[in-house]
C-alpha cells in the first residue's frame, strides 16, 4: 500500500473511532463528511483501499441514520481498532480482511434491512463514483474503479451540477456542424 494512502486511511480510522466514541446525533453528518476524505487519493492512486474505506464510511453513516440509536457501536469500534492496528503493523492483508468483516457486519445487522443495505452500499459506490468524476476522472474510468455500470453513474451525475461544464467548442458552432451532417 502506498504510504500516502496508508497515512490517510489511518487518520480516517482514528477520526471514525473518535466520532463513534460517544453516540450523538451529529455522528451521521460527521461520518458522511469524512467519507470523502480519501477521494483525493482514490483519484490519484485509484487503489481499492482508498475507494473501499470511502464506501464503507458512507454506508455506515446511512445505516446508523436508519437504525436511529439502535446500533451496536462497541462491535464497530472493536473492528475499527483491529483495522487500525493491522495497518500500523503493515499487515495489509489482515487490514483488508477486517474491512471485509466491517462490510459483513453492517450487511447483517438486521435481516429485514438486507435489501436496504445492499442498496445503501450500491448508492455509496455511485456517490463515490460521482466524486471521482468531479475530481476529473472520466465517467468510464470512475465506473470501472467503483465496479458500477455507466448507466448508474450517468443517471446520478445528471442530477448534479457536474454536467455544467464550460470549455471546448461553442454551442453555436457545434450545433451548426451537427446540422450540416443531417442536411
Amino acid at each position: 500500500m502506498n504510504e500516502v494512502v496508508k497515512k490517510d486511511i489511518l487518520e480516517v480510522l482514528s477520526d471514525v473511532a473518535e466520532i463513534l466514541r460517544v453516540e450523538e446525533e451529529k455522528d451521521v453528518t460527521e461520518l458522511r463528511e469524512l467519507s470523502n476524505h480519501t477521494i483525493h487519493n482514490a483519484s490519484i492512486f485509484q487503489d481499492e483501499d482508498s475507494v473501499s474505506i470511502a464506501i464503507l464510511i458512507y454506508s455506515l453513516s446511512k445505516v446508523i441514520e436508519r437504525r436511529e440509536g439502535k446500533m451496536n457501536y462497541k462491535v464497530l469500534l472493536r473492528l475499527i481498532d483491529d483495522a487500525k492496528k493491522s495497518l500500523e503493523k503493515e499487515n495489509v492483508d489482515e487490514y483488508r480482511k477486517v474491512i471485509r468483516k466491517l462490510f459483513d457486519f453492517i450487511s447483517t445487522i438486521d435481516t429485514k434491512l438486507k435489501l436496504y443495505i445492499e442498496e445503501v452500499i450500491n448508492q455509496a459506490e455511485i456517490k463515490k463514483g460521482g466524486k471521482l468524476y468531479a475530481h476529473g476522472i472520466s465517467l468510464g474510468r470512475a465506473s470501472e474503479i467503483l465496479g458500477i455500470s455507466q448507466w448508474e453513474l450517468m443517471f446520478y451525475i445528471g442530477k448534479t451540477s457536474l454536467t455544467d461544464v464550460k470549455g471546448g467548442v461553442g454551442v453555436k458552432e457545434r450545433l451548426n456542424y451537427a446540422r450540416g451532417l443531417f442536411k
Partner: protein
Amino acid sequence: MKVIVFDTGPIISLTINNLLGLLTNLKEKYRGGFYITAAIRRELIERPLATKKFKFEALQVLRCINSDILEVFDSPELKGKTLHLLDLANRCFFVKDKPIQISHFAEITGIAASILNNAEAFVVDERNTRLLIEDPKRLQDILSKRLHTKISLDKNSLREFREMSKGVKLIRSVELVSIAYELGLLDKYLVNIPDPKRTLLEAVLWGVKLNGCSVSEKEIEEIVKMEIKQKP
C-alpha cells in the same frame, strides 16, 4: 461510407429518455453508418444485463444493434490504436511524478474508431473525452482545483494525442435531439398547451442533461433561442 461513431453516454441518455427510436430516423436522414465498438457495446449491454438495474434499457439498445441501426465496428488496428491513445491520454496529467489515469478503454475505442473510419463525428456526452480533445487546459484546471494540488502536463503526450485526434469532431446528444426537433421527428409530442414548441424542445434538452449529458444551463438556453428563431 459516411460514419458517425457513438460513445456509451449518448446512447444511455437517449434510451433513458425514451428517445432511442430517434436513431432510426436520424440514420435514414444521414444515409451513413452509426457505429459503436465492442467495448462500448459491453458497457451498454453486458454490464447492465449482469445487474438488477437498467436491464430493460440494455435490451432496448440490444434490439437497436440487432436491427443494424447501431453497428459494432471492429478492425485489426482498433485495439492497437486504442491502447496507444489510452496510454497517451493517461500520461497527459501528473501529480508529482505520478500520471493520473483519467480515461477508460471503452471511451478511447470510440476515438480510435472515429480516426480509423475518418468519421464525420464522434457523439460523446462525457466531459473528459470532450475536454481532452478540445480544451485540455480546462481539464488540467479541473484536476488541479479538485485535487488541491499542482497538476503538471506532459506536453509530448498531449501533443501526440491531439495530433492523432485532430480530425475528430465532437457532438453530443443535445445536438442530436436539437436536430431531431428541427427535422420534425418530435412533432408528435407537440400538444395543445401554451408555447408547445419551446416546451417540447426544453423538455428533450433537459431530459438528456438530467441523464448525464455534459451541457450547461446557459448552453441549453442558447440552443432554445437559436432553434425557436429558426423554427418559430
